[in-house]
């Protein structure tokens, strides 16, 4: 049994007629990138908010944030995705679910569900990183901020968060990478991102190796680009004379 390699397959016209198979790959890549970036914005915003809440005095708010984290950390991403995509539109009150199903085209429905799902899922992880960053700061920093007359929100804004975020750039980098990798899960609801395009190409061309090698290579490239970018961020935000100790 010998495999017939055919790298030219990418340049031949795709079954859809309006594009080449290379075009499929690139459109998948584009969806993956768009999806991951928009989910990352949600994850950062929500995760930072929750991370701050986990460190504020008062059991009520920090307990709320802790519950949030436990829920999103202890259910598989795939199950969460299916719940966002299949369950939520059915059970949303006030006809919101029906509007979601009727007013949005299927591709948008898939994209929105995937984006929200990845965003919330990752926010729970971002929350834990932000919390550990804040807790890693010397306790006196908060006191110093308060002693100068800052309110608690001002102390977070000017003293604690700028330093905490610098400390957690490396773990956030790995969460950022994860969001790209996790986005592949969204192929299961039919969203035509990179991995799904790869599978579709296999179905149409019977050239699985070329397709999978190309998809894998594209994920590797994303990985390298993100790491380079984040290393740049890390260098940009480095504090002179600060070695990360206490």
């Amino acid at each position: 049994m010998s495999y017939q390699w055919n790298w030219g397959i990418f340049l031949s016209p795709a079954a859809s007629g309006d594009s080449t198979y290379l075009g499929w790959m690139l459109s998948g890549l584009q969806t993956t990138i768009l999806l991951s970036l928009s989910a990352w914005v949600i994850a950062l915003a929500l995760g930072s908010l929750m991370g701050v809440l986990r460190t504020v005095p008062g059991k009520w708010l920090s307990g709320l944030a802790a519950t949030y984290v436990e829920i999103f950390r202890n259910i598989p991403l795939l199950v969460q995705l299916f719940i966002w995509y299949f369950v939520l539109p059915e059970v949303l009150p006030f006809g919101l679910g029906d509007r979601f199903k009727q007013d949005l085209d299927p591709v948008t429905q898939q994209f929105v569900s995937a984006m929200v799902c990845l965003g919330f899922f990752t926010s729970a992880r971002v929350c834990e990183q932000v919390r550990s960053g804040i807790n890693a700061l010397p306790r006196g920093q908060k006191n110093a901020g308060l002693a100068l007359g800052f309110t608690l929100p001002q102390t977070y804004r000017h003293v604690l968060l700028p330093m905490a975020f610098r400390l957690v750039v490396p773990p956030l980098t790995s969460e950022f990478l994860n969001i790209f990798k996790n986005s592949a899960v969204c192929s299961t609801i039919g969203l035509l991102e990179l991995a799904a395009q790869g599978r579709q190409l296999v179905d149409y061309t019977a050239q699985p190796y070329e397709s999978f090698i190309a998809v894998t290579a594209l994920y590797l490239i994303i990985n390298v680009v993100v790491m380079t970018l984040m290393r740049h961020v890390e260098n940009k935000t480095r504090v002179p004379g600060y070695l990360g100790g206490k």
Partner: protein
Amino acid sequence: MISIDTVSKHYGSFQVLTDCTTQVKKGEVIVVCGPSGSGKSTLIKCVNGLEPFQSGTITVNGVSVGDPKTNLSKLRSHVGMVFQHFELFPHMSITDNLTIAQEKVLGRNKDEARDKGLKLLDRVGLKAHAAKFPGQLSGGQQQRVAIARALAMDPICMLFDEPTSALDPEMINEVLDVMVELAQEGMTMMCVTHEMGFARKVANRVIFMDKGQIVEDDSKDAFFGAPRSERARQFLAKILQH
């Protein structure tokens, strides 16, 4: 200026402060000393409300610290505090450390805050370091910046929480010199410190604490001349062995 009246504090069943009472008048310099764990740092942090306390009252310039209606941020903005570990903000330049609270808390404009900050930085002898970051300065230098940062807020009194105990010995004097100068200018000061030389030079009174209680509260001559309690005598004897 500062009045502390039968203040008690406990963490769970652990009693940290028991019925502490004392006053600091305007222009007075008070040194608080005592063995570690005696509650002196906790007491000084109660003065600006960084540590809550369960009973008793503390008033600063007539404002009650423990009263839930008190705007603590406002009170703290004119009570300067210097910490054991300096607590400069590592991600800001020295200039920004000196100006951020002036701008965000007191609402001063950028230029005004900058002029004030740099003037005080000059006063503590560090004008040349304005553009550097805290991590690039020695401990002694950082602590002098921290004093300047507190002074930039035009405080009505200053609290020092072991300002020299995290410093290498050769850096202690540069910080103490700044504090002595401040005392001689008439700043109201409450200092938790073991530097007895500093106490002898500028203190009006010395408070000795042990196990959460104020054991002695006396003029410095009386304290150093003939401490009334055995515990204070032992403490002084130990300090002198250094």
